[in-house]
């Protein structure tokens, strides 16, 4: 490639425009290095771009081998981006109220162009759960959880839980029978939370005289549902958690996760 380089002609209005453009202050404030055709300028590209600087400047040869990583971490991140984008678009049409939730979901299929947008979000969510599990499996099989990477493993476990919670909260939003009863069943688990669920072990110990401190209207399940059954409060809470709370949390942890991968010696290789 280097020997085959061609040089632009030195005459003509386009050339003059290009020469003027690349000398402007604005241009030079954006592109602060020459073309990446030497090791030095290649490194400068990586270091001076906020998106590229997340990547390592150098990686091991094994790092790009499919059979080392299965690409599962990257695929999980990619699917997260897909879900963020499609979810944002769905939010333009979806209203988390008893009156509109279900009809808006139907309308997303029937009344809006590109009616598969919701399905892309749904299938993307399924796929992300799968890729996160496979990523975890790969990390386990290659022993990549061992020191000094054990902290990153723990971050990953939390992100796995957040992924599942995103899936769980998203499950309710269509507000059909499947959603309502699935969340009813799922949230019943919170009744049995130790101390914090009113049917859980130890909850009976938390009482002032005859007055129980933990009961059906103030326990962990109530905090999740915003009520004592899956109703409008639950729909709104799950919506806010699904669209704002959990994605923010997982995004912060992803930043930590990626940064830690670099600091702990890069992907998929012996230290």
């Amino acid at each position, binding site marked *: *490639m280097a*020997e*085959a*380089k*061609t*040089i*632009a*002609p030195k005459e003509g209005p386009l050339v003059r425009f290009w020469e003027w453009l690349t000398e402007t202050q604005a241009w030079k404030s954006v592109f602060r290095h020459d073309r990446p055709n030497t090791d030095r300028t290649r490194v400068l590209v990586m270091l001076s771009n906020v998106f590229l600087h997340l990547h390592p400047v150098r990686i091991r040869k094994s790092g790009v081998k499919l059979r080392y990583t299965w690409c599962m971490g990257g695929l999980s991140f990619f699917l997260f981006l897909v879900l963020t984008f499609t979810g944002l*678009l769905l939010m*333009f*049409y979806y209203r988390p109220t008893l009156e509109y939730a279900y009809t808006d979901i139907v*309308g997303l299929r*029937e*009344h*809006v*162009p*590109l009616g598969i*947008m919701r399905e892309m979000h749904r299938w993307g969510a399924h796929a992300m759960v799968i890729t996160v599990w496979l990523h975890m499996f790969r990390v386990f099989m290659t022993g990549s959880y061992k020191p000094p990477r054990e902290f990153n493993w723990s971050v990953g476990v939390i992100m796995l839980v957040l992924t599942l919670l995103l899936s769980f909260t998203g499950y309710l939003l269509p507000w059909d029978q499947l959603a309502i009863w699935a969340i009813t069943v799922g949230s019943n688990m919170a009744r049995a939370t130790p101390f914090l669920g009113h049917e859980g072990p130890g909850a009976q110990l938390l009482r002032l005289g005859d007055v129980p401190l933990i009961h059906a209207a103030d326990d962990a399940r109530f905090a999740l549902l915003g009520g004592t059954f899956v109703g409008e409060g639950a729909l709104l809470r799950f919506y806010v958690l699904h669209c704002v709370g959990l994605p923010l949390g997982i995004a912060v942890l992803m930043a930590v996760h990626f940064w830690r991968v670099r600091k702990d010696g890069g992907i998929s290789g012996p230290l």
Partner: protein
Amino acid sequence: MADENKAIEPSAPPTGANPAATPNTRQVPGGDEPATAAAAAATGVSPAPAAAHAPKPAAPRPPAAPLPDLAGKTTTAASAGGAQAKAAASAPAAAKPAVAAGRDPDDSSPLLNRRAWLGLAWGAFSAASAAALAATGRFMFPNVLNEPPQQFKVGFPSEYGMGVDERFKDKYGIWIIRTPDDLEQHASGFYVLISVCTHLGCTPNYLSAESKFKCPCHGSGFRLTGVNFEGPAPRPLERARVVLADDGQILVDKGKHYQRELGQWIDPESFLKA
């Protein structure tokens, strides 16, 4: 990508069928034959290498690289190629097997070489991305609107007395007014005022005691005819199309507005004589 093509095409037979030509192909990495010839001439070397492989047309397939592109434009690279050609002219070219090989020796597919495949792949990817982007843009424009219809029936003329009727203001944003003598049409009948202030678009209130419409935002006042008389409103309220439907009911069509300052209140459909 394009310049890589230019480096490959004239020199390397895509079929890889002629191993004897290989040393020559290594000598002209910089460009096509005219450029090489020019460069060779510039460096004082006879253009023999170029001529040497000239009689071997590169393929059953025509060369993909546009030849005129590089004429006179290839400078340093071609010079390098020329220099190399000089070296090759004096020594066996096999000395530099892989230096300037524009093409992987394994890359001998008869249908698509690596470059063409990459071009095709990127083209297809770009097209798919553009289509997805366009569809996403279309996503923002739904096919169904949950808005009140622009045309609706408001009952029979006999149901209305003289004066302002506010029944449909909340739902449709109109007043229906029955008058014994309209200022433009000089007849008795109905007209429909759009309840949007012509100043900045607030909704005026009907003040029956003062027989006027008064906008709460900036104090514009309109007479029952819709004509502005106080406050900042620059022009009268607009009237909507009003006709009799087939069943004898009054049909209001907000899709068609009539403005007095444009002389449109004399339009027969801006007023329903009754």
